[in-house]
């Protein structure tokens, strides 16, 4: 462990060259002989009865091969948790992205023209567009076959909040809201389905984040065996949680049309189609009540978080579950009562997005902690230090944090030091003259690694040493741009002492790799790293055994620098020679590795148990300048300290931190769907604004390493914690600068200047 060659090094990305030279093929680059182009006709209204659909003119359009509606689909529903998402809407459209008709033609142009000829008669209905309306007992029902609009309710009860509030000297009650966020991946969704190829019914190629989830959906829709559906994912132009159900639905549509025509069908969304149809981050309405003694000890917290699930259940049950676990933030609170809910509405459906259920609760709860500190006359960091988790602390669900290092103090200290927090806090707390005012604000968090009690948590991988010593890796986890190919190659390279140029991480192919769960929850390095490490270890043992016999060596054998050595440092043979000799002696040099995550538990009634097997800790501090004449906020600096256990690739970790911070800046300050009454008005990046290079602060990415006993080389995770803290940190910084607190996102010009978002109704 102490002499690492591959791991803990900023190795160049193994796929960087192909990507920067344009050689890497993405979903929409693929071409197959005889391919058709698919297109979907979507609803004009967020909620409408579909009275009649006339496809005759579209069918007659030259070049059109097939036009289909919901009736033509073998099984029209799918879903990862609750199977109520429809491939196409039949009797009614229940959100603005619902597809009604799909067609495929010889050219994109023909498909587009034909789509315009589809005649749909609607009866526009008044929908429900606010989850707080939809939760009322007498609200009209969004989803057929349900008796209420509630998708899910997660309670958590610890101690007794009444007693807790009675002990408090100060009680604060605040309400917060967060908004829709579009994933804004560079590459819009693209899928090609080839029928009757590679011994399967359908092969699905494209920008698929979670190959197995998409396989489940396509097989379910086609009523086919899993073995007959093959998903192959290669390069992705970003996902951030966003290419799951919408891709599944696209793949299912293309698959149905491919089988109908017996020709490959390609579907590629325009940006407008992508923004209108794809799921978003859940908007939340949050109510927080907190009690504290005048010394600043928290006595009780009562929390209600209501998430807008939109038209489908999608991942609402799991997203709101992460919220219930993290809702108090990383603080010891003896008495907690938390309820998180999801409700159906006729709004865009909401699902996974980097951060999952935590960014809304982090925003609320870390904003609240700042306000509480102010009310108590304490410094924000002091209040946190007084209450935050330490080694052996008990969480809201009564999990004792003792199997890993609880490093909140370390991340807090390192971030503070990097940005010179104490001095700046003091300076910006004084009266500031002039239009531009500065502030500094912080936020801390703890976050469960991997899926937790959401689902079974297992991953498999294959390490296959070839007879020339080169190595092929398979795993069901997908390279979504996060750098997983590189990280996995480093882990295997470290075990087998082989350099990365001899290792190839293959495309994710569901018919080859073992089902590994989804590439989500910041779990891949941990789960896939462990699985592949095991597989590599198995191969290594086989090679050691072979080498001892074949070359007559004894004692320990060391694998390094593409060769095998004795423990005294004498070279035995090149790795490639050993592989070749072994192969020609009939030795099997491949192995599966299977990893099952440590045990966890959860009581659905009380919210008590061990929801995650380990946690990561982070602190971000934002320094801002607010133009009080215009409401413009400039984030000047951001210090982001994250405990990742062990950085398999420090450059990649920093990349994740930079990316997470930039996303959070966008979410906090400018991103806005232009949503009103079920319609999405900002359908491209001229209106849906994300940060440009000029909006990005100077970011100090601070890697903190406290190896986790269960992680590969001690690694935990980094992808999502980076995006959950920025909102609160920026909000707190703005409050210090201007003396005014905000409770709703985004903190756009108008909100910061006038105190409310004038462009939004209600």
């Amino acid at each position, binding site marked *: 462990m102490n002499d690492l060659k591959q791991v803990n090094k900023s190795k160049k990305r193994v796929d960087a060259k192909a990507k920067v030279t344009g050689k890497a093929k993405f979903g929409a680059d693929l071409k197959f002989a005889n391919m058709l182009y698919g297109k979907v006709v979507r609803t004009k209204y967020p909620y409408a009865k579909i009275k009649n659909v006339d496809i005759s003119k579209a069918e007659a359009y030259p070049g059109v091969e097939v036009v289909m509606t919901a009736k033509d689909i073998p099984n029209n529903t799918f879903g990862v948790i609750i199977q109520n998402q429809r491939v196409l809407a039949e009797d009614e459209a229940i959100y603005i992205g619902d597809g009604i008709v799909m067609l495929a033609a010889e050219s994109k142009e023909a498909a587009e023209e034909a789509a315009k000829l589809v005649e749909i008669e609607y009866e526009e209905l008044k929908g429900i567009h606010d989850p707080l309306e939809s939760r009322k007992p007498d609200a009209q029902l969004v989803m057929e076959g349900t008796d209420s609009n509630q998708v899910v309710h997660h309670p958590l009860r610890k101690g007794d909040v009444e007693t807790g509030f009675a002990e408090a000297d100060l009680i604060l009650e605040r309400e917060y809201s967060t908004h829709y966020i579009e994933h804004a991946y560079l590459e819009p969704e693209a899928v090609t389905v080839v029928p009757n190829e590679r011994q399967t019914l359908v092969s699905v190629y494209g920008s698929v984040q979670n190959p197995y989830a998409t396989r489940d959906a396509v097989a379910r829709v086609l009523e086919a065996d899993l073995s007959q559906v093959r998903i192959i994912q290669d390069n992705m132009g970003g996902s951030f949680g966003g290419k799951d159900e919408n891709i599944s639905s696209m793949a299912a549509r293309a698959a149905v049309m491919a089988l109908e025509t017996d020709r490959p069908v390609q579907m590629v969304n325009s940006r407008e189609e992508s923004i209108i149809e794809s799921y978003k981050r859940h908007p939340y309405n949050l109510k927080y009540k907190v009690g504290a003694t005048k010394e600043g000890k928290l006595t009780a917290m009562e929390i209600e978080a209501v998430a807008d699930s939109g038209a489908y259940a999608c991942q609402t049950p799991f997203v709101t579950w992460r919220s219930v676990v993290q809702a108090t933030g990383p603080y010891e609170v003896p008495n907690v009562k938390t309820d998180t809910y999801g409700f159906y509405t006729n709004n865009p459906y909401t699902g996974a997005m980097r951060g999952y259920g935590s960014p809304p609760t982090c925003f609320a709860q870390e904003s609240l902690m700042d306000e509480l500190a102010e009310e108590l006359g304490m410094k924000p960091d002091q209040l946190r230090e007084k209450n935050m988790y330490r080694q052996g602390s008990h969480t809201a669900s009564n999990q004792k944090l003792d199997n890993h290092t609880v490093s909140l103090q370390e991340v807090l200290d390192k971030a503070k030091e990097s940005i010179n927090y104490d001095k700046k806090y003091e300076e910006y707390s004084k009266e500031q003259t002039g239009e531009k005012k500065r502030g500094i604000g912080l936020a801390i968090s703890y976050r469960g690694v991997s899926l937790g009690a959401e689902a079974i948590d297992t991953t498999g991988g294959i390490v296959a040493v070839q007879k020339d010593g080169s190595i092929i890796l398979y795993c069901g986890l997908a390279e979504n741009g996060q750098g997983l190919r590189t990280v996995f190659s480093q882990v295997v390279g470290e075990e087998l002492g082989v350099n990365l140029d001899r290792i190839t991480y293959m495309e994710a192919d569901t018919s080859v790799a073992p089902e590994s769960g989804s590439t989500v929850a910041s779990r891949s390095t941990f789960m896939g790293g462990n699985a592949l490490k095991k597989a590599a270890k198995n191969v290594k043992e086989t090679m050691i055994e072979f080498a001892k016999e074949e070359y007559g060596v004894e004692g320990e054998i060391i694998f390094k620098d593409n060769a095998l050595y004795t423990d005294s440092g004498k070279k035995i043979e090149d790795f490639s020679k050993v592989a070749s000799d072994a192969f020609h002696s009939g030795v099997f040099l491949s192995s599966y590795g299977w990893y099952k995550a440590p045990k966890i538990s959860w009581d659905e009634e009380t919210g008590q148990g061990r929801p995650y097997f380990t946690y990561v800790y982070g602190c971000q501090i934002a320094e801002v300048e607010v133009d009080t*004449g215009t409401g413009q906020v*400039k984030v000047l600096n951001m210090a982001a300290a994250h405990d990742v256990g062990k950085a398999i690739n420090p450059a990649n970790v920093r990349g994740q931190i930079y990316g997470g911070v930039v996303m959070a800046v966008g979410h906090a300050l400018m991103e806005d769907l*232009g949503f009103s009454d079920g*319609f999405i*008005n900002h359908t491209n990046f*001229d209106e849906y604004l994300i940060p440009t290079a000029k909006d990005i602060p100077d970011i100090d990415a601070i890697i903190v390493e406290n190896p986790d006993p269960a992680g590969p080389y001690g690694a935990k995770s980094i992808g999502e914690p980076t995006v959950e803290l920025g909102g609160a940190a920026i909000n707190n910084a703005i409050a210090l600068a201007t003396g005014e607190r905000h409770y709703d996102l985004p903190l756009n*010009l108008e909100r910061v200047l*006038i105190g409310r978002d*004038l462009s939004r109704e209600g």
Partner: protein
Amino acid sequence: MQKESKLNAENRQKTSGRGSNKVPIGSADFLAPESLEKALDYRKRYGFEATVIAGGTDIMVDYFERLYEVNSWLDLNKIEELKKIEINDEEIIIGATATHKRIAEHPDLQKYLPMLAHASSEVGAWQIQSRGTIGGNIVTSSPAGDTLAPLLAYDAKVVLQSKGGNRILDMSDFFIGPKENVEESDELLTKIIIPKPSENILSRWKKVGKRKALIISSLTMAILIEIDNDGVIENARACYGAVAPTPIEVKNVGDYLKNQKLKEVDAKKVGEIAVAGISPIDDIRGTEQYRRQVTHDLTVNAIKEMAEEI
């Protein structure tokens, strides 16, 4: 609020009204003359049948996914004469196809027309500035065009040239509505003439947008004040973008300021006069209330700062 889903490109906001109802004339030509004379010939012959293109940063967006609707192009990029920037004792003359980047980086323009140079440096981003031209910005005639308030403040004139001759118009007479102007189908905008400002000039430029680059302004402000040696205001112009159907000068501000000592001006009053002179609307870049408040605050601050500067 819209009534139907904004799914298709047709629903995109158009940056100019023209062209969409064009009747194809059969032949599709790409005209790239090297002389102005030749260009004016084509202009006469084709009129609006040929779409004029300079940097293309507005027109290409305009025709996004509808490029086939453009029948013929008249490309101005090969005409050297239109790119010139000249400065003499009385005037500064900027060719219509001078790019924002050249204007932003031109030392004389930075010296004499700092608001224009600054505004040009805030158009879009590096790439847009390298292609986009001042003429394109003017002819697009967006109320939010970044160079327009500064040009009004500098009392610029535009030269519209045709085979028949020249028209020289005050900038303020050129714009007649959002994305509408008085250019005729046989005319080209060839240059912008700006009287060389005196030495005793103070000015303030401000762009307000929802992010730091690649953003259409929520509001722009260009205020210019000319003072004599005693600090008395001889002449003042306060101009704004994105607060009315066209970029505008609020003349009452100039009238109010004239002959006052800058140091003694009631800045708040100036802010009020400015707000009374604008007619903003609610749109995606800002609400009416926001624009009024910001116009007020920016104007007040600009006056205060300028008073401190002398």
